[in-house]
């Protein structure tokens, strides 16, 4: 009973109030939640908000979402209102009264079977169009480009058809460039477990299921940087598996692609040269390729392709940003990030395969020295 | 055949040992036919529906007579057939989902 006597504000409001007040309070707490939903809560400018679609697929999906949300809200308000009305109107006034014992009403019951059936069928049918739209890459556009996205624990590999002929493809990681205004078909694969490819502002997700050969498509209407994240739980660092889609004008895209196809730069800087040696000796090249072009069919490597790692805006699948506000890679940031990564990758990304498998992290005798790390950083920074 | 079964049911509604034996014979013969059909290569894909029907018949015979569903309370049939029908539907749904869209 102690609790009852010093109830505090909470207690006195809820316990002392009359039934009507309680009902009003109930109503208010519900209405508040609903209202809140409508107004200030959602932030469309947030990086991964689904409320700011910037491509046709996401746009269609949002439209159908709004319709169903409105429909749902109407159902909620109507049913909620009926409930509350009944509660207020029919609350017990005296213990003696016994209401009329109504057992049912077939006509009413039929009514509330048929109306919801019509409503939900309406929703379903209205949505099917969008479903097919987002599933099928538009056929009328000849310009469609196709690329491959391959999920790894916990990063994304991307492969482009090469400008140097159909035999070769360009390999990169964690960053996809796409041309603005052109539908992009993405073939989805995974080398280990199921991941899911999701760029909220461009399109809903599709899972990357090992050997199922899924695909999806989207199109960016304007240039920009779009956040993506793996959406299917895929193990320890699922939370740390991100990527970016960077949409640029078609001409810029072509330049970027041929830059990527070009071989990695040889740097003249002695420290970088030393780093290049360490890269081989310390076993880095066992998992990371420096060739940007892979023959069709040559299987993915264990780690991300590093041929142009210094050109990427983020390091370690979106965990560390190398770019300044304008999206240009800043060497100072990059170096700091590379250093952090090489010093202790598992601090950035728990469980990642580099720290659990690379000899330099598993074998205490081979731990990278400060000097080696600096050399590697210098070398990797040179890989524009 | 079905007449025979009916007549031997008798008045108690319960089959006799003789009937059980007859059913066993039918089951054996049908199995033999199944295996025979299986070697008729010219039937092609038709062996699927044919074998299907034959083994469904065997299934029904055992369930109805040996498990005396035919003579027992309907409730037992509902319980068993319910599970059976659901299992069959799930099998077909999965076959469909896997072969058509995967």
């Amino acid at each position, binding site marked *: 009973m102690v609790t009852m006597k010093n109830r505090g504000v*909470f207690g006195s409001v809820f316990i002392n109030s009359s039934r009507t007040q309680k009902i009003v309070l109930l109503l208010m*707490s519900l209405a508040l939640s609903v209202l809140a939903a409508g107004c200030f809560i959602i932030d469309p400018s947030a990086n991964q908000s689904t409320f700011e679609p910037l491509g046709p697929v996401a746009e269609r999906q949002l439209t159908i979402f709004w319709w169903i949300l409105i429909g749902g809200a109407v159902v909620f308000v109507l*049913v909620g209102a009926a409930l509350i009305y009944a509660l207020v109107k029919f609350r017990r006034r005296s213990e003696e009264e016994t209401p009329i014992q109504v057992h049912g009403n077939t006509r009413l019951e039929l009514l509330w079977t048929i109306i919801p059936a019509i409503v939900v*069928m309406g929703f379903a049918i209205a949505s*099917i169009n969008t479903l097919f739209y987002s599933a099928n890459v538009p056929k009328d556009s000849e310009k469609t480009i196709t690329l491959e996205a391959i999920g790894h624990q916990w990063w994304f590999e991307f492969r482009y058809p090469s400008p140097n002929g159909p035999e070769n493809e360009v390999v990169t990681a964690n960053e996809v460039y796409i041309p603005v205004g052109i539908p992009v078909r993405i073939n989805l694969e995974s080398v280990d*477990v199921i991941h899911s490819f999701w760029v909220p502002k461009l399109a809903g997700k599709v899972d990357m299921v090992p050997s199922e050969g899924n695909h999806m498509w989207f199109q960016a209407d304007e240039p920009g940087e779009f956040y993506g994240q793996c959406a299917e739980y895929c193990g320890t660092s699922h939370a740390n598996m991100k990527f970016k889609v960077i949409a640029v004008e078609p001409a810029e895209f072509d330049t970027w692609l041929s830059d990527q196809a070009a071989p990695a730069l040889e740097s003249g800087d002695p420290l970088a040269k030393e780093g290049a040696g360490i890269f081989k000796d310390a076993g880095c090249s066992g998992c990371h390729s420096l060739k940007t072009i892979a023959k069709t069919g040559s299987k993915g490597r264990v780690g991300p392709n590093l041929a142009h790692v210094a050109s990427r805006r983020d390091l370690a699948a979106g965990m560390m940003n190398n770019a300044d506000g304008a999206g240009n890679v800043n060497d100072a940031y990059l170096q700091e990030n590379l250093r952090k990564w090489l010093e202790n990758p598992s601090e950035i990304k728990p469980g990642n395969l580099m720290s659990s498998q690379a000899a330099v992290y598993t074998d205490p005798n081979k731990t990278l020295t400060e000097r080696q790390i600096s050399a590697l950083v210098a070398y990797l920074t040179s890989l524009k | 055949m079905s007449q025979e079964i009916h007549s031997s049911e008798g008045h108690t509604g319960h089959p006799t040992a003789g009937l059980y034996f007859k059913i066993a014979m039918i089951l054996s013969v049908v199995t033999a036919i199944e295996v025979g059909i299986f070697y008729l290569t010219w039937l092609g894909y038709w062996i699927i529906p044919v074998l299907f029907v034959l083994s469904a018949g065997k299934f029904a015979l055992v369930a109805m007579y040996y498990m005396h569903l035919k003579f027992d309370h309907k409730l037992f049939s509902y319980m068993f057939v319910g599970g059976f029908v659901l299992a069959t539907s799930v099998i077909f749904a999965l076959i469909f989902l896997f072969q058509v869209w995967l």
Partner: protein
Amino acid sequence: MSTLSLAIPRPVHPSGLWNWLTTIDHKKIGVLYGVTAFIMFLSGGVEATLMRIQLTKPELDIVSAAVYNQLFTMHGTTMIFLAIMPLGAAFFNFVIPLQIGARDVAFPRLNAFSYWTFLAGAIMLKLSWIGGATDAGWFGYAPLTSVDQNPGKGIDFWIISLQVLGVASLAASFNFIVTIINMRAPGMTMMRLPLFTWMTFITAILLILAFPVITVALIELTFDRYFDFNFFNVARGGSVVLWQHLFWVFGHPEVYILILPAMGIVSEVLPVFSKKPLFGYTTVVLAGAIIAVMGWMVWSHHMFTVGLGPVANAVFTITTMLIAVPTGIKVFNWIGTIWGGSIRINTPMAFSLGFIAMFLIGGISGVMHAVSASDAQQQDTYFIPAHIHYVLFGGAIMALTSGIYYWFPKFSGKMFDEKMGMLHFWLMMIGQNVTFFPMHFVGLDGMPRRIYTYAEGMGWDLWNLVATLGVFILIAGFLVFILNMVKSWKSGPDAPGDPWDGRTLEWSIPSPPPEYNFSEIPVVKSLDDWWNTKQGGNGKAVPVSGGSGDEEHDIHLPQPSYWPLVTAIGLFIAAYGVVFNQLVVPWAIAIIGTFIGFVGVYAWSLEPVNDPDEDSAH
């Protein structure tokens, strides 16, 4: 009767520990189920609280990634298999025989076996925290559960304890199906069954059909893990999608297994506190049955993004949508029930009303998921946990809490504190909305589920903070609840037999019910028989609540037994033996456990029915 060599006299322990260990009284087993399940709920709640604390702010480092992944997996598994299902079972056990006018369930010893097996599975799952629990999510998608990906014992514990829990649930469900069909009092036709009994019946049928599917899926996974089979091994042509199909063929009916008993409770409470019969009894029953049937046709709505193709997605969109119709019928009939009634809002009623409101939100967000086109943006985001918790917390937990309050006087013989009850209600209502509503927002703002942390500047900070704060309101609520229950049970005022002016048979007997429930098996003349009797409508005198018990010596009650416990222990040992199959002699422990189980089964089936000296009375 000849005494068999294996037959040991049945135990006679009127009280004490042995009484609880050997009891086969459905009411005691109900209480055991309820208390155990509630403790499990608290453990799942503690896991949830830890998750929420970790997510309070971006980039916190309170629990590690590895632990967080175990937390949400164990939280989901615990809440579903160890909290809500057994809480349902607690009600089935306690209430059903009373509602149908029976002295016990059809198989009292099987009932005890169900409980002990459930306990074995629960202990096994929870103890797996020692040494690393499972971390593959509650639906354990392949190939995350493969040995390559997950060599530890966590997954093995998860698999094997789910199998054990499956045995428990199946045994309980068979028992209840038979009990409900076959133990009804004279005149209690199927269409006079109380709604809760009906929903239990449907749930039990769903369960015996759904569990074998997950049993098979888990067996396949076990074989893959233990013996290198290829079911889900992509390298040898297996399909990881098959696991998803099998899991959700089970999984979707499972969510209705969780909600139908809850709906049954609400359908009991609303009429009582509105003094009006359930509106459209037949329709509500039918709607429940239709939900159960349709529940089998929708499973792929959990797989909209797996790549089944637009045709399959469209089909499953439509079937899923249609489930809203029978569910809607229930909601509308509930409103029809209170409409024109004389509504008294006390704690059980408040929880039932809260259920309607909260479940409505969850149901509508379910319908939003069902639109596969836009679900592509929602699937695996926090929008899904929002739905989960509105239907499971706002739905199942609210209704089960309503049921606990509603039947508390009956099983404890005491009245609870109404004011604390209402305080609990408001804390729950506010707490859950504060906790779970924001999940909609962060979900739509692109926050994936099952992430142990998130970066700053994603726009998710505020609502995660709010959600975490909400948990503390919930904790306060549950503390009030525990306090209320413990205090009232110890020293609450005595409850009359029929405190709520009830409608169904359990209110016609004293609180707590005597061991034999009904001194005289009632003859039922109508739906809501007890109510009609009280109104004088059934042409019989209103009996004084509860017989004198004089007839006791005439009533044959089932005797306690050791063997259900022994069999369950055997199963428990065997299950551990499977997980640690390489310990000492390979597979030896499993074999010993199985042997004990067999001994239990044999002794059980050969056990004399009654004490030899009572035998003549039969």
